[in-house]
Every structure is written in C-alpha cells, then in structure tokens.
C-alpha cells in the first residue's frame, strides 16, 4: 500500500469538512502516512477463523419504552447555539439551496 499524496490529504479534508492550512496539508501528508504504516501491523494478525462481531463481547443493551419523556429546555439549548431564532424554536444556518 502506497503512502498518502498531497491530493489524498486534500480529498480527505474535503470529505471531513475540514479547512486545512498549507502547512497542515504538508505535515499531514507525511504524518498520516507514518501512522498508517504503524497501524498496518495489525494486518499480520491471523483472523480468518474468527467470526466478526462488530462490538465483540458487548452486552445486549437494555431498551426503554418508546414514550415521550422530559428533555432539556428548548430555549436554554437554543441559547447555547451560535445563532438561533428563539421565537420559532429553530437553529439558523447559512443558505443551503440557491434560488
């Protein structure tokens, strides 16, 4: 498996919605490759006979009744957001659709 290129790093950053500086792009191109080389050692482990359980050993989680319960106060939650329309009870974001 090859190491990462600068274009790979830029693509990952766009998938992750991260704006990187030039310095970070350059740094990560090297460091992410180093880290991937390190973690690749797990590929040597024999696991072909293993049945995969995604969360091996986890307990069955309890289920609660599907009933309406008290939750956080809406105005307090909205007050902690960067921009909200408290009267209508909504978070505000920049325009998503054009036109």
């Amino acid at each position: 498996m090859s190491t990462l290129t600068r274009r790979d790093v830029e693509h990952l950053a766009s998938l992750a919605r991260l704006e990187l500086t030039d310095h970070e792009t350059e740094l990560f191109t090297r460091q992410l490759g180093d880290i991937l080389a390190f973690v690749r050692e797990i590929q040597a482990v024999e696991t072909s006979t293993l049945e995969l359980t995604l969360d091996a050993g986890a307990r069955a989680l309890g289920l609660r009744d599907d009933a309406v319960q008290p939750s956080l106060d809406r105005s307090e939650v909205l007050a902690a957001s960067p921009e909200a329309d408290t009267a209508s009870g909504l978070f505000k974001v920049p325009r998503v659709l054009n036109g």
Partner: protein
Amino acid sequence: MTTRPALELRDAIARGDRAAAAVCLDTLDRIDAAPQAWNAIITVARERALARAAALDAREDARSLPLLGVPVAVKDNICTRGIRTTAGSRLLDSYVPPYDAAVVERLEAAGAVVVAKTNCDEFAMGSSTEHSAFGAARNPWDLERTAGGSSGGSAIAVATRLVPLALGSETGGSVRQPAALCGVVGLKPTYGRISRYGLIAFASSLDQVGAFGASVSDVAACLSVLAGPDPRDATSAPAPVDDYLAATTQDVGGLRVGVPRAIMVDGVDDGVRRAFEAAVDVLRSAGAVIEDVELPHSRYATATYAVIVMAEASSNLSRFDGVRYGTRVEGDTLAEMYARTRARFGQEVKRRIMLGTYVLSAGYYDAYYRKAQQVRALIRRDFARAFERVDVIATPTTPTPAFRLGARLQDPVQMYLADVFTVSANLAGIPAISVPCGWVEGLPVGLQLTGPAFGEATILRAAAAYERKSEGTFGPSDHSDFRTR
C-alpha cells in the same frame, strides 16, 4: 495509616469540626494561589461551589452523605450546568452547557462540591495535556515534563492537593497514565460501570469516566457514588454495585496475580522495570500468588486502538459543525461554514478526524477498521482466558516516567506508544487502576492492576493492600517540594 484526605475531610465536616463552606473557601483560595506553571485548571466554579457548600451546611440531614463537603475538580470534557465546559478546545471556549453530566449530579447528591474544571488535551485526544487550547499542563515534580494526559489537569490537582478527588475520562489510559506520572491513584472502571451522560463523546466504544484520588480508599468511595445504571446512557450496566470501600480493607492472601512478562520486553525503562518488580515482591510478601500469564495479542493493542479510536472520533466529532453549540466561523454557504468552523480544531484532533475518515472509507474499511475490530476481539479473548487462571493482572502503568514536554509532539506514533500498557483495558472493556509504586530519578511511576469486567472490588482490594504494605518505602517525603516556577 494510609492518607485518605477525602474521607478524613468528609468525617471532619460530618462531626461538625469544619464547615463545608470553610473547606470550600480554603480550596478555592489554594486554587487561586496555585502556580500558573502547573496550568491544571481552566475554569474555577467559585460561586456555584460556595452556594453548594453553604446549602450543605444549612441541611440537617447532610451528615450521612458519603462525600459531604468534599471538594472535587472535574475534567473539562464533563458537562456542568452554567459552568463553561471547553473540552480543551477553541470550538467550545465559550460553551456553557444547559445540563449537568450524570457523574456531576451523582457527586453533588453525595455531598461533594464541584470547585473547578481541569485542563485536558482537546476532546481528550492526547497523552500529555499539550494538545489543549488553554496551553500545556506541566508536571509538578518537574516543570519541563508532561503531567500525562489527557486528564493531566485532574492528576495535577490531586497530586498537589488542590483537591482530594478529581474526575477524569478514559479512552485509552487518560486517567491511569497521568495518575502514574503525577504520583496519585487513578481508576478506569469497567465499560458501562458509570453513566457517560454529559461526557463529551470521543470514541464511544471505549470512553468511560474515571476518578483520581490520593489514596485507594478515596477512589473507592468515589466509585461507590458514581457507579450504577442510568436510563440516559444505554451502555450503562445494571450489574450490582459492590461495597468498594469494604474491599479496600481486605487482605490479598491467596489472591492470584498474573504477570504478562512477554509484553514487558521492549521499550520499558530500567527504573520502571525495577519499581514494578519491587511492587510484585510486595504483593507476594502480602500473600498473593504470582503467576505468569500470556496476552499474545497485546503487542497489537496500540495499533488496534489507534484505528478504532480515530474511526469513532471522526464520526463523533462531526457534531461540531457550528450549528447547535460552540463557535461558528461564518461562510457564504453551509459547507463553507462547516469547514471554516472546523478549521479551529487543533492539530491532533484534525489528524485523528482525517485518519478516521480514511480508515472508514470505501476500499480501506476492511483492511483497517474491520481488521482492528477482529484483533480487538482477540485481545478481549486473551484477557478472558487469563482471568480463568488469575484474579488480577499486574503491569507497569507506563513504559517510562514522565517524558519531556515537546519531545513527542512532532512524532504522533511515539505519543501513542505512551499508552502501550493502558489501551488494552479499554479495548477489552475491563477495569484497571494505577497506584503509585515508587520513583525513578525523581519522577513518580505507577503499578497497574487490571481485573475482569465488573471486578472493581478485586483490583481496589489488591491496590489497597499494596498501598498499605508499601507505605513508608517511598513517597513524596523522598522528594523535595513541588516545582512551582
């Protein structure tokens, strides 16, 4: 007698020898006067703490509370209503949660007083508390060295006796490692033992709240308060809560202690090795039976952990998008606003989000994430087999004493290797404790005791027995005062 500052303080307040408000004021004054170089505290909750302490003094029925009037510092990735909660991040530098975490509720219901929020690596991602937007914390025994991380501020606050108890969080050793490097007791409970409601999520299959104290019995008393199910955290477990404090008074005659010598071959400092072997001898002389155990897949634990933690972090941190809480950096479009806002993450957080995105992407998922889950299952199986033969497993907590600040910042893989002995317990979901076991060139190091799931009583029992037997053979009296500047 072993020092148990939290419980002694509690008893003094319950007897009426001291008022909770006076203890609180004294604590706040000491926090204010603490050397800035330590950088253990991000926010002081002065008014909330004083109001809380005064309310305890006014209550007739408070005397039976298990942590009556005990000041507690809380890692800043644990939500506190009305008190800024930053997770060490610029994205949350002015975030004030509208609710308390379950652990904060439980502490206060038990009479504890939350006095401060402690410094940590951003979103708990790190092993040195250098990746904090509020500056690096420093080891009080040597200011040029790390206090460990990510819960470094909580470890310092207890080591320097600013507070007798503190909460941290663990994903791969973030309580045990700073506890060892600062010379205090640190416990990571079983996955599910403590509710995580209000703990800012990092890697959800690994995260767990943990506790720091100056003694094993203080930590046991704290766990007794924190443990138990909570309907608001579906991963919290209904398993019975043992009498942890009673466990700390039992001896270890016949207790089987496994030592996985094969995993302690490479990269372990000679001084750490000597301190560890001396600690094993102490347990043996206390009546424990020492046996060899094998954990054949532990050598892959750090790499396995890195893949899983990054994948889960990249998913969890997608919530920090400038919409519902924290900082927003404006953009012309929603996508631009997301990217600019998230540009405020620090470098380590960005690194992990990037790698997590990579290992979860089509074409790489099987080779990395799926493979890591399989190796995790093997690590878990190794422990299950070992615990058929022994009651606890002993290792050093860290391979070296505290390393120099900056020494590993440019080499993430070296930073990850600081957690080589601690990540396995998180991968296996089992409890582990670090207890001070001596000094290496003037720096504290820790003995780690790991137990089977919900075996907290057993590891607390072994740790307390070790603490009693080793008392007087080392300790802060071997060392000059804390460094303050």
